[in-house]
C-alpha cells in the first residue's frame, strides 16, 4: 500500500468498545425508529380509512308506536329516495340489527320484546344531500326519525388517529435525540481512548479538521451500518406480523403499504447524518481541550 494512500481512513484504529457501542445503539434506535415510523404512517392511514368509511354513510333511526312503525318507515324511505344526494336507502333487517346488538347486549336478551327503533342505512352520493333540509323534511313527515350523519363518530376517531400520529412523531424525535446523545458520548470515549493518535497527529502538524474528520468518518460509517442492520431487522419483524383479516381491522392496518415501504430506507442515511453532526461537534469540543 502506498504510504500516503487515503490516510484519513486509517489513522484511527478500528478497535475499542466505542465501536460496538455505536453500532449497537444505532441498530437498536433504527429498529425502534422503524416501528415509530410505521405507527405514524398507520395512524395517518387509519384516520383516512375511518373518515372515508364514515363520510358517505348515514343512518336514520326511527322510533314510533308499533302500529305506526311500518307506515312511518315507508314514509322515511320515500323521503330519502326523493332527496337529491342520496344514492340508496335500505332498512336494516331485524336479524342483522339483532346481530349488531348482540355484541353489546349478549345473545340471551329477548330482543323481540324490546321496543327497538328501526334503522335505515343511507349511502350518500359524493356531493351529499342538504342535511339541514333533509332533517326538516324528516321531522315534518316522520316526527320519530333522526338523521345521523356520523359526525360525532368521525371527529373523535380523527382526533385519536391524529394524537397517535403525534405520539409516533414525538417518539421519532426522541429516538433521534437519544441516538445523537449516545453517539456524542461514544465519540468522546473514542477520542479519549486514542490520546496517542491525537498527540502524534498534532506533532506532525495535522489540523483539528483532519483529526476530527478521521474520527467522525469512522463513527458515521459505523452508525450507518448499525442503522442499516436495525432497519432490516425491523422490516423483517414488521413483515412477519400476521396481517389479520376479517374483523380485526386495527392490526391489519399496522405497517407500511405500497411505496410506504421505501420510507424506512431514509433511516440509515439520517442516522449517518445525525452521527456526523453529533460526533463532529463532540470532536471539536474534545480537541479544543487537548494541547
Amino acid at each position: 500500500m502506498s504510504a500516503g494512500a487515503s490516510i484519513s481512513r486509517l489513522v484511527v484504529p478500528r478497535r475499542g468498545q466505542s465501536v460496538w457501542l455505536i453500532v449497537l445503539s444505532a441498530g437498536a434506535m433504527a429498529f425502534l425508529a422503524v416501528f415509530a415510523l410505521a405507527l405514524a404512517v398507520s395512524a395517518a392511514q387509519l384516520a383516512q380509512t375511518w373518515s372515508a368509511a364514515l363520510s358517505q354513510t348515514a343512518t336514520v333511526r326511527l322510533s314510533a308506536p308499533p302500529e305506526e312503525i311500518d307506515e312511518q318507515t315507508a314514509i322515511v324511505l320515500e323521503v330519502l329516495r326523493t332527496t337529491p344526494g342520496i344514492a340508496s336507502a335500505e332498512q336494516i333487517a331485524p336479524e342483522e340489527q339483532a346481530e349488531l346488538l348482540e355484541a353489546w347486549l349478549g345473545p340471551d336478551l329477548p330482543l323481540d320484546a324490546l321496543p327497538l327503533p328501526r334503522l335505515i342505512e343511507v349511502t350518500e352520493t359524493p356531493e351529499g344531500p342538504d342535511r339541514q333540509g333533509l332533517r326538516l323534511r324528516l321531522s315534518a313527515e316522520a316526527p320519530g326519525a333522526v338523521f345521523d350523519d356520523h359526525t360525532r363518530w368521525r371527529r373523535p376517531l380523527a382526533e385519536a388517529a391524529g394524537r397517535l400520529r403525534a405520539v409516533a412523531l414525538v417518539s421519532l424525535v426522541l429516538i433521534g435525540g437519544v441516538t445523537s446523545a449516545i453517539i456524542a458520548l461514544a465519540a468522546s470515549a473514542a477520542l479519549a481512548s486514542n490520546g496517542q493518535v491525537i498527540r502524534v497527529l498534532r506533532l506532525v502538524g495535522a489540523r483539528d479538521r483532519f483529526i476530527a474528520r478521521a474520527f467522525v468518518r469512522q463513527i458515521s460509517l459505523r452508525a450507518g451500518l448499525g442503522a442499516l442492520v436495525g432497519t432490516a431487522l425491523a422490516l423483517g419483524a414488521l413483515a412477519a406480523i400476521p396481517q389479520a383479516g376479517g374483523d380485526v381491522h386495527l392490526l391489519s392496518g399496522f405497517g407500511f403499504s405500497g411505496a410506504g415501504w421505501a420510507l424506512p430506507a431514509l433511516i440509515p442515511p439520517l442516522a449517518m447524518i445525525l452521527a456526523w453532526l453529533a460526533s463532529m461537534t463532540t470532536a471539536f469540543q474534545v480537541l479544543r481541550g487537548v494541547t
Partner: protein
Amino acid sequence: MIVFEDVSHDYGGGRLFGDVSIKLEQGSFHFLTGPSGAGKSTFLKLCYGELTPSAGKVLVMNKDLQGLSRNDLAGMRQRIGVVHQDCQFLDHLSVEQNVALPLSATGRPVPDSDVADLLSWVGLASHAEALPPTLSGGERQRAALARAVISAPNMLLADEPTGNLDWDMSQRLMSLMIELNRMGTAILIATHDLQLIRFAKSQINARVLRIARRKLQVAGADL
C-alpha cells in the same frame, strides 16, 4: 527562526530559565545539554508550542506562539520536525505510513521514492511494512528522525535522537542532520553525548547551550 524574549517556565516546583532571551537563527546548529531533569525537553516543547511559557514570549518564524490560533499552530508545526524522546507512533500503521504522516496528514503529496530513500538512509528499508511496536528502541528513534525530516522542515528539534543507537548509526544520523543544516534547516538537539557533539563540531559550526541550576548558559555563562 526561534526567539525567546524574557522567557520563564514554572516547572517542578520552581522557575526555569529565569527570564531568558535567546535567538536561534535560520540555518543555525545548536546542541542543548544538561543533566537529566534539567529542563531540556521543556525547552524544546516551548520551541514548538506544546508548552506555553509562564512568563515572556516565544516567537517562531516571527510569530508569537501564544497568539496563534490552533490552525495556525498546526501550520507552524508542519514546518518544524520534532523527534520526541519517547518516539510515539500510530502503532496500527506501518513504519512507512508513520514516516509519511507529516505529509499525508497535512494534505501534501507523498512521493513513495522519498519515503523509501529515507528509510534506507536510516537503515529501516527492511522494516518499511513493520508495525512500530515490533521495532527496537534504536529502530524507533531512527523511524522518528525519518518522520521528522520527511517534510524538509525549516527547523528540526530532536530530544536525545541517538540515545539508543550504536556509534556508527549515531554518526550516520548526525551526518543526515548536518546535511539538512547545510541545506538551511535550523537544528536544535538535546543530548548528553559529548562524543556526538565533538563529531558534529568537527564538521560544522555548532553552538552548545547548557541548562544548569535552572538557567540557560552559553559557554558557561548564564543568559
